[in-house]
């Protein structure tokens, strides 16, 4: 039988699709196997009272964003610009993002009470 180009192409597509399915099966097997490790990690996190997973290790405020504050990124010198690489990958968490607060004390000198 003569192999035409379209047959070869179809064969390649089928081969790649089979590889994709195999990769999916392998991932399922591995994640099922890792369940024991996850359980141990969960217990450890509870015991240490961990706040959030550490995704970056370079800056303190991006390491545990839930524990970050409005001041720690700028401690090098007055009005330092934040300069860790992870700073642009994780923005400040919502509870820190600067936004006007309704319960702010009125500014007595501004005439805007």
């Amino acid at each position, binding site marked *: 039988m003569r192999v035409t180009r379209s047959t070869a192409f179809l064969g390649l597509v089928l081969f790649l699709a089979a590889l994709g399915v195999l990769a999916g099966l392998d991932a399922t097997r591995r994640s099922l196997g890792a369940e024991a490790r996850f359980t141990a990690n969960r217990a450890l996190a509870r015991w240490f009272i961990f706040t959030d997973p550490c995704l970056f290790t370079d800056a*303190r*405020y991006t390491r545990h964003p839930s524990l970050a504050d*409005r*001041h*720690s*990124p*700028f*401690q*090098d*010198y*007055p*009005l*330092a*610009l*934040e*300069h*860790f*690489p992870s*700073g*642009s*990958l994780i*923005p*400040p968490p919502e509870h*820190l*993002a*600067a*936004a*006007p*607060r309704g319960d*702010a*004390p*009125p*500014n*007595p*000198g*501004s*005439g*805007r009470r």
Partner: protein
Amino acid sequence: MTAGSHRHLRIIAYVVGSLRRRWRKNVAVVLVYGFVIFTLASVVFLTQSLRREAVAALQGEPEIMVQQLRAGRHGLTSIGDVAALTRIVGVREALPRLWAYHTDPASGETLLLRADADSPPGDREVSAGAELLRRRGLAVGGVLRLQGQTGEPLDLTVSGVAETATPLESAALLRVSRAAFRALTGMPDGQATDLALRVRNRRELPTIAEKISQAMPSARPIIRDELVRTYASVFNWRSGVIIAALLVPILAFILFAWDKAAGLSPDERREIGILKAIGWETSDVILLKVYEAVAVSLAAFVLGTLLAVAALALPQPLTVLPALLGWSTLYPPFRPAVALGAYQVTTLFFLAVFPYLVATVIPAWRAATTDPDLVMRA
């Protein structure tokens, strides 16, 4: 007028006509290509402006700053440490500094409190950056309410506009007396935020930093020149990340422009064939296409660059700015002073004009070197 320049003028006159004949295609290419240039130029210009801003802010800082670390965090420094530091050879003077960040109770933004030794305001007074006063709607004589360390409100009278060197300082600086500073931050007497060291010879900075680490193992010496280098690389890194994120749309637009520009339409082919048949040289046709490409890409470059410069002055900054600033968005909003470097503009220029030139001239050259009869029939 020489024959050479006469030839160029005639070709340019023909180019104007030809651009006008295909104005729809040319306008589309200029718009799309101009948008690509605008995106790249915005990132490049903002990066340059921020780098300039960071370096300008550091100009006023001392050569070395010494901070204490407590449990891995920034801790307060004892004023008594000054004596140990001034004993190090090469250190001209060491000054304790009082500065801290303060969360603006009205906006939740991070402000800077500074208590300097020279001409401080009175204990119930504050002098603030012009932009900060403007945003709070305050004038000299007005009252600024801040929150003390224990939560009680502290009213300070605005005694003047503080002198500031950068837009960020203008938006975030509050100068107070030492007593007011301690009331606002709870910093005990005898302690300071950090120590500022003035050094005689800049070449000795690494040696002095090493001696500081030996004399005070818990201290962290910060060398100003190293910070300048850090800022240069971090902003380059961030602009690279942004351009990488924008790469897919940019590439799509480039492909669109390339396709419009590079693929000679049958009309254009026929035109080249006719020009050759009526006696144009191959060099004339190539010159014609070069002029066309330069006109279109230059228009796109000027449009994109001008739009990027105009966007720097918009009241609402582009989304690129927060991405470049990272966590510095916790400060009050500020616009870095516009800084356009010749290097950046030149790079953009070559990025805009050169690929376009190659994309259009090569197909035209191939068409021009083929037999006119074949080209016209194709």
